[in-house]
């Protein structure tokens, strides 16, 4: 019941957000039409960071008390993080091409961190795919998740410091929002719509994951007897 409300409200709010983005808010003075990409691009990326935090916490909780629900939550967070992070990256490239003239800029800190984050999600999911035994899969992928979590500050340090050793500081991608109140409303609505969509997808996927595990267990019982 709660999930249904979540799903319907996220669709409704998404439609409202689209209206606000394309009709209500004006065209950005500095960047023109491509600025509209930010209304979706920024919330999607923020949610991929949330996925990373959820994955890290789930791994810590699983190693702490070994309850399968944490492992499931981590896997679901990684899947959502991969999709949100990947589409966020691609939409960012769609923004970069008209504004900067190129799809990709090396040595921009946020871009590179995002790329490494997506690669890490993909590696985590690939590891899980190759581990058939359920307990081993949970433990080993949680260990990898923690090692990857520890990696994040070092990535930031490396990407931040290394260019200053050799090249000048690069362009930084600007944040969203702007000072225009219409834009702020559209942005807030989009953010809330995406948070609702994420929660809906997360809870549905988590429920399916739980049933999957139970069916796996049932299968073993039936085959054994």
């Amino acid at each position, binding site marked *: 019941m709660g999930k249904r409300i979540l799903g319907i409200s996220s669709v409704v709010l998404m439609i409202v957000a689209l209206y606000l983005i394309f009709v209500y808010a004006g065209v950005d003075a500095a960047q023109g*039409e491509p600025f*509209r*990409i930010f209304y*979706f691009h920024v919330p999607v990326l923020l949610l991929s960071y949330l996925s990373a935090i959820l994955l890290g916490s789930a791994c810590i909780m699983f190693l702490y008390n070994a309850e399968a629900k944490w492992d499931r939550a981590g896997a679901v967070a990684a899947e959502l993080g991969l999709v949100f992070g990947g589409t966020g990256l691609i939409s960012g490239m769609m*923004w970069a*091409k008209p504004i900067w003239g190129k799809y990709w800029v090396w040595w921009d800190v946020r871009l590179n961190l995002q790329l490494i984050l997506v690669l890490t999600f993909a590696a985590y999911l690939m590891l899980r795919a190759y581990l058939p035994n359920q307990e081993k899969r949970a433990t080993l992928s949680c260990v990898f998740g923690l090692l990857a979590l520890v990696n994040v500050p070092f990535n930031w340090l490396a990407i931040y410091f290394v260019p200053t050793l050799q090249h000048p500081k690069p362009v930084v991608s600007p944040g969203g929002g702007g000072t225009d109140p219409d834009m702020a409303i559209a942005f807030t609505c989009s953010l809330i719509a995406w948070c609702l969509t994420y929660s809906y*997808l997360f809870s549905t996927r988590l429920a*399916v994951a739980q049933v999957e595990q139970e*069916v796996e267990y049932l*299968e073993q019982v039936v085959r054994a007897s």
Partner: protein
Amino acid sequence: MTYVFAAYSIIFLGIFILAWSIVSRQKRLERKLEDLKEELRDSGRK
């Protein structure tokens, strides 16, 4: 303007693929449960 359209469609495409994968997983699970019920019924008869 084409870039805006491309960006939005990629994001929506990603979400739809995710949602579709959830639904297909659910269908697959229901099929498996039906098969398991059949197996149990057959082994029960034997």
